[in-house]
């Protein structure tokens, strides 16, 4: 079997067959087809889980190389960051694998490290949000005047206090949401949907082969 067949024809054939099965399953209710679809969908779940493990291995390889390079260049802070990342990755994985994902130790690690760090990072976005709003949203032109007015109405209507004392805000907000937002997002959604169908058909017909990576012709 030639290299071209292995690296190009077989993946394309698999894509076509899998895609057609999943597509037909949406429209045709036939027990054998449903059974095959179920297997393919479950296989996808396993593949994604495998890819997450593979990404972990890739991360270890990447940072091992980075540690070597940074040590030779005497960048000790970068080395420390990479070492910390690897220690967390390997330590956490070891606890999960050997003690169980629902073990007290695993839960303790999550509750005392990930939870406060992640919450803090998210909460800090208020500062950046306030800063960005203050510095960027300026009524420089007709379009930005509209943006500023809509922003003010939207922010105020998302705050219970203002809506209580100025009920008209809710009318404005509902109008913006039901007319402007729905209309524009529906148009975008339909456009994306049509684009997705086109992309899907092209992929099934082997007209899009980017997902195969760099394959020599």
């Amino acid at each position, binding site marked *: 079997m030639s290299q071209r067949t292995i690296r190009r024809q077989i993946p394309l054939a698999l894509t076509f067959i899998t895609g057609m099965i999943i597509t037909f399953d949406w429209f045709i209710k036939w027990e054998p087809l449903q059974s095959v679809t179920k297997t393919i*969908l479950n296989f996808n779940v396993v593949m994604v889980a495998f890819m997450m493990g593979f990404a972990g291995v890739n991360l270890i390889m990447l940072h091992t190389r980075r540690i070597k390079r940074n040590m030779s260049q005497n960048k000790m802070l970068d080395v420390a960051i990479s070492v910390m990342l690897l220690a967390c990755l390997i330590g956490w994985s070891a606890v999960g694998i050997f003690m169980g994902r629902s073990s007290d130790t695993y839960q303790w690690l999550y509750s005392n490290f*990930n939870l406060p760090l992640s919450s803090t990072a998210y909460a800090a976005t208020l500062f950046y949000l306030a800063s960005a709003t203050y510095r960027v949203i300026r009524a420089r032109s007709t379009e930005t005047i509209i943006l500023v007015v809509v922003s003010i109405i939207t922010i105020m209507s998302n705050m219970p206090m203002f809506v209580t004392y100025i009920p008209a805000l809710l009318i404005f907000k509902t109008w913006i949401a039901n007319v402007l937002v729905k209309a524009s997002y529906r148009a975008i959604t339909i456009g994306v949907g049509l684009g997705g169908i086109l992309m899907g058909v092209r992929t099934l017909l082997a007209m899009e082969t980017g997902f195969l990576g760099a394959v020599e012709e």
Partner: protein
Amino acid sequence: MGEQSGIGNTLANLPTWLYFSLIIILMAYITLNPLGFPIPVTSLTIDCYDAIDALQPGDIILMDQGYGAGTMAFHEPGFIVVFRHAIDKGAKVVIVSTSVESPMLLQRAIDKIKPAAKGYEYGVDWVHLGYVAGGEPAYASIVEDINNLFTEDWEQTPTSALPLMQELGVPTHEKIALVYIMTAGGDVVEGWIRQSALRYDLKFITQVNEMMVPTILPYYPINCDGILNGGVGAAEYEVYSGYSGEAVKLSDMMTMGGLVVLVFLILGNIGYFMTKGGSS
């Protein structure tokens, strides 16, 4: 005019430390001294409430507890109040997670809900299946045959030993009365809508971040029966349903956060107009 543009310059170029400090002081003050602003209830929340309220005893809700630590502050109160309401309606709850860290956050919420105190038995009235990878194909698999995908729950108990899982059977979607998705990822809600509401016409409600609501609105009310608008939505649900919870307490902080952003937006623009006037 020179003085005017001086004030304008000051307003347009406030130092970062000033408004960052102001945010910290205001948020700390409102946390320590809640003002108890009133909370009006919107139709999006009432629709969510109605969807849960229409459930009959024994109906099964499929919940995707897909929030992480970052958005937990407002997703968790929404999850708790909806779960409590479902318990009072006698509905059974199947929980899955499409976010890796969500399963670790569930116990916190369960400790507050206390289903056992209401006679809710694990495995019979509610189950927690844990994380599933795979995105939209995984959602399709869940609504098609959940037992085929999950062979054990989060605590690694075989699903064959859980009566509620046996009740779900094949096809799973025929046994599900309502789908409730909590997430901070836009593609998650759209994927669930396609695989459950659109394909099998299942009733569907969701709780998303405030900024995500516009992306879900095109599906409302045809494919999505109700939307909880982040923490505000959770607070509205608590007020409307009468269940006291944390969202109402957080509501003052959300109001203050919005107020801070609003004040800086207005100040920045006043400063901009004054400097623009000065230069002209």
